[in-house]
């Protein structure tokens, strides 16, 4: 009993401390000149990007005293952030600046209230009239456009690349200087690695989206949407053939891994998988953790066909409601779009910057790219990037889930590739028809 009492007293003391701490923090920014507070929602965890985001925000906050930016982390990437955003809006609030994955572009535009960069420029900062067009590449700007309207400013761009473990290549008798170029070669190399080393040869990232698969399917001449862009149209022989190749690697050759993204990427870092097909955004994470000779190769092609690389990443729309918050958000946006910050962002993650001058700046990223083979690979793919398919309306959220389920159905053999694709296509089209 005595011990208990002491313990309770201790707990109480800690609580008091907590209470005091709480009181103090709430008093920040006295009555004198209250700075504008804006919130910036992003998806980057401590192991992936968050430190740079924090650095940017801190630097911005330190650079002036009218605006205070609060960064807010949202777990589970873009779907996670969309869930939180939805909830936030329901509660009658919204963040000032938010990070939206390109695949949610149409859903976001159709369902949320936001202010376009053009509106802000027109209303408050006419001097920035040419900012967008002079700063960003045209094909990059279109990534964040719906029906010609610029919804937000592109921030991060990623491309899918092949990471490979050169040590394992050597162990398997493969030439690390000549990584596979076509999917057929990828399959053969994976098989060799599995046979020779007993480890898995290949893993394609499995997030709750269709991004990497889109690259695979479109590389074989398939399309995700019909020509008018209003219907799902991926249940084609080309798509099935391409998907079958991945399925065969998992199910027939048993050389490819079918596992969650977290575990799969971890397994690659851990030397348990020879090749990883994943987003360039992970370059920073993988490089810092991998203990082997890590190298990169371009996203594979199908023999004789053109490489199709979907643009991953995100853009930043502004959702702030009041004039001063909108202005503040714009200020912050321009701050982080400065070449040195974008360069830092790229170096730490592997995302490609939305403005060309960052990559060309000899003091900035250029030198870095020359040294960093993986980032160089990602850059080299950038010219030919296509949009990541975004489904319109309410379908946007369910589409990614359907794609993820389709992948599970195919890769655990519960459905044939053709049937699974057909079922998914029908499901999406019936949703679109509603």
């Amino acid at each position: 009993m005595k011990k208990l009492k002491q313990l309770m007293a201790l707990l109480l003391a800690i609580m008091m401390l907590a209470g005091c701490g709480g009181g103090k923090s709430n008093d920040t920014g006295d009555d004198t000149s209250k700075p504008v507070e804006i919130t910036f929602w992003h998806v980057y965890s401590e192991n992936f990007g968050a430190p740079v985001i924090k650095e940017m925000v801190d630097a911005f906050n330190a650079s002036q005293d009218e605006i205070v930016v609060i960064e807010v982390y949202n777990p589970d990437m873009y779907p996670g952030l969309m869930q939180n955003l939805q909830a936030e809006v329901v509660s009658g609030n919204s963040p000032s600046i938010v990070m939206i994955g390109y695949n949610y572009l149409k859903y976001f535009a159709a369902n949320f209230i936001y202010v376009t960069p053009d509106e802000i420029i027109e209303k408050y900062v006419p001097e920035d009239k040419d900012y967008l067009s002079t700063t960003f590449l045209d094909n990059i700007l279109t990534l964040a456009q719906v029906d010609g309207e610029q919804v937000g400013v592109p921030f991060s761009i990623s491309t899918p690349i092949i990471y490979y473990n050169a040590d394992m290549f050597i162990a398997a008798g493969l030439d690390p200087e000549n990584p596979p170029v076509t999917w057929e070669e990828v399959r053969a190399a994976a098989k060799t690695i599995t046979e020779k080393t007993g480890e898995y040869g290949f893993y394609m990232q499995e997030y709750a989206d269709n991004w990497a698969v889109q690259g695979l399917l479109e590389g074989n001449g398939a399309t995700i949407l019909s020509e008018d862009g209003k219907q799902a149209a991926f249940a084609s022989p080309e798509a099935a053939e391409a998907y079958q190749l991945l399925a065969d690697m998992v199910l027939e050759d048993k050389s490819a891994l079918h596992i969650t993204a977290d575990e799969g990427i971890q397994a690659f870092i851990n030397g348990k998988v020879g090749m990883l097909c994943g987003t360039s955004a992970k370059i920073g994470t993988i490089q810092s953790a991998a203990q082997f000779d890590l190298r990169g190769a371009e996203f594979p092609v199908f023999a004789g066909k053109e490489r199709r690389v979907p643009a991953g990443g995100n853009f930043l729309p502004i959702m702030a409601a009041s004039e001063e918050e909108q202005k503040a958000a714009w200020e912050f946006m321009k701050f982080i779009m400065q070449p040195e910050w974008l360069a830092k962002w790229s170096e730490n993650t592997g995302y490609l910057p939305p403005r060309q001058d960052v990559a060309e700046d000899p003091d900035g990223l250029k030198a870095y790219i020359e040294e960093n083979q993986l980032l160089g690979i990602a850059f080299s793919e950038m010219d030919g990037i296509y949009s990541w398919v975004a489904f319109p309306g309410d379908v946007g959220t369910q589409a990614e889930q359907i794609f993820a389920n389709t992948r599970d159905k195919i890769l655990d053999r519960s459905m044939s590739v053709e049937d699974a694709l057909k079922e998914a296509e029908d499901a999406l089209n019936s949703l679109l028809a509603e």
Partner: protein
Amino acid sequence: MKKKKWSQTGREHFLAWCFVAPATLAFVVFMFWPLVYTLYLSFLKWNMVAINKVMVGLKNYEAVFNDPVTKKLLGNTLLYIVILVLLIFVLPYILAFVNTFVMGKGKGIYKTLLFIPSLISLVVGAIVLQWIFNPLSGPVGAVLGRFGIAMPSWSKTKGLVVLVISLVAVLKSFGYNFLVLLSGMSGVSTELIEAARLEKTPNRKIFGKIVMPLTSSTAIYVLIMSIVQGMQYVFTPIKVLTQGGPDFASSNIIYGVYQEAFGYYNTGKASALSIITMLVFLVLLFLEFKYVEKGVYYEN
């Protein structure tokens, strides 16, 4: 105003309600009102954001019943229930019997040790188990690897994914259930057991014929709580580890509601599904009151 002298009983009644009031108020605002609101939402088509809510009658319920996913969710829910009932009810029930009536000295320590994992949060439990079962780098995989068995990637394997996620709930509830069942066992007189022993009754029969009937109200309580809480305990690991995947193989009705609501923003359908869940629970509640509360009254 006239001064009215309250009768003693009148004053007591008033006071009685005053004492119940704070808890009642909290429940009304954060339990019953939400329940009613959810019922209301289940008749609407609304995505939580749109200003217009469209009255659609029973359409949401229709949609729930026609959705093949619902069948999957119900099937998985049943699977979770079966696994959980076995692992956090049947197993501790038998072990509580063994601990009370079969084992000799030094048996008291187990209830304390087995209780410890229930102090760990579900997220921590989920993440630690995820690593323990990591097929490529986890200890289970490593041990199996030594025997030349390839650990299947559980998070992508139907059935197995339910089992591993259930283990998180098992970690959380086993010790507590064991404790409650032990306390039920302590109500059975040892003389009865000794008398049966003198007749050379095998333990199996002592359990089935004497202990089970005498501990039935405790057992039913634990059984029902295992189902009701177990269903909710698996939510966190599902959300953190699999998000219901692969292809809904690890989702149950509780997570299904969450996904419909916060994943697809089908507030109406989510509400309809949660009302259905509620009805299932209501049956359990009825059973609880029928067997457990009544039993308690009889004892006094």
